[in-house]
């Protein structure tokens, strides 16, 4: 049974083209995710929340005091930030504390680095990338 399952898996395993490395790009980030992170950071209130959270974890009440906005507004913005993975929530007794998630910020930085001019790694569906020869040339020119 297990052998059959393994055989089936091997059959459908993505074939690696000989001589070509697997396509590395933008950490294989899903475009939708990238857009969601940047959307979460595209509001001035949310940006100030991010800045205040970068110092230490804070609760909703604290944030609404600092940003001088009603608690409901802050809660809404925190929800958006939480859904896009920029902010984590933790509970301490009756209070909820919010903290920044460093990984997502790192991923955002990585995205801006990988799309920097000249760092393209051959993923666009144009001939420059799909034809193996040009792909190799790009590798030589821009490095792996």
């Amino acid at each position, binding site marked *: 049974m297990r052998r059959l399952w393994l055989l089936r898996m091997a059959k459908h395993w993505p074939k690696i083209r000989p001589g070509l490395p697997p396509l590395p790009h*933008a950490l294989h980030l899903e*475009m*939708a995710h*990238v*857009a*969601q992170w*940047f*959307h979460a*950071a*595209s*509001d*001035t209130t949310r*940006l*100030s929340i*991010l*800045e*205040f*959270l*970068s*110092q230490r974890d804070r609760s909703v009440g604290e944030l609404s005091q*600092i940003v001088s906005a009603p608690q409901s507004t802050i809660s809404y913005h925190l929800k958006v930030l939480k859904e896009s993975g920029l902010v984590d929530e933790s509970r301490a007794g009756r209070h909820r504390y919010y*903290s*920044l998630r*460093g990984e997502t*910020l*790192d991923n*955002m*930085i990585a995205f*801006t*680095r*990988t*799309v*920097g*001019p*000249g*760092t*393209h790694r051959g*993923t*666009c*569906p*144009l001939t*420059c*990338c799909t034809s193996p020869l040009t792909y190799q040339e*790009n590798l030589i020119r821009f490095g792996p």
Partner: protein
Amino acid sequence: MTAPAQVAHWFHALSDETRVRIVEMLSHKERCVCELEQVLEIAQSKLSFHLKVLKDAGLIADRREGRWMFYGLQRETLDQIAAYTKSVKPGKHAGSCAVACCD
């Protein structure tokens, strides 16, 4: 420190899947609208709109060559975005808030 409105403007430009794909395509080299249209499979009017948003945010710059417009990425803006994101990483607070902790 850059003004929050400006930062929000940059992030807004990258907050759409189509625009992120455009930025990815431009990271290779300058491209004309015809190439982008062919790959992204969207109407030219939509594409022009997205390009305008990116251009207003300063992420791309255009260059006219004969009948065609070529679009290229602006490295400085991408660097500034990375710098901002780095400055808000946990524990990296630069002391810019108007609260007792920073005074």
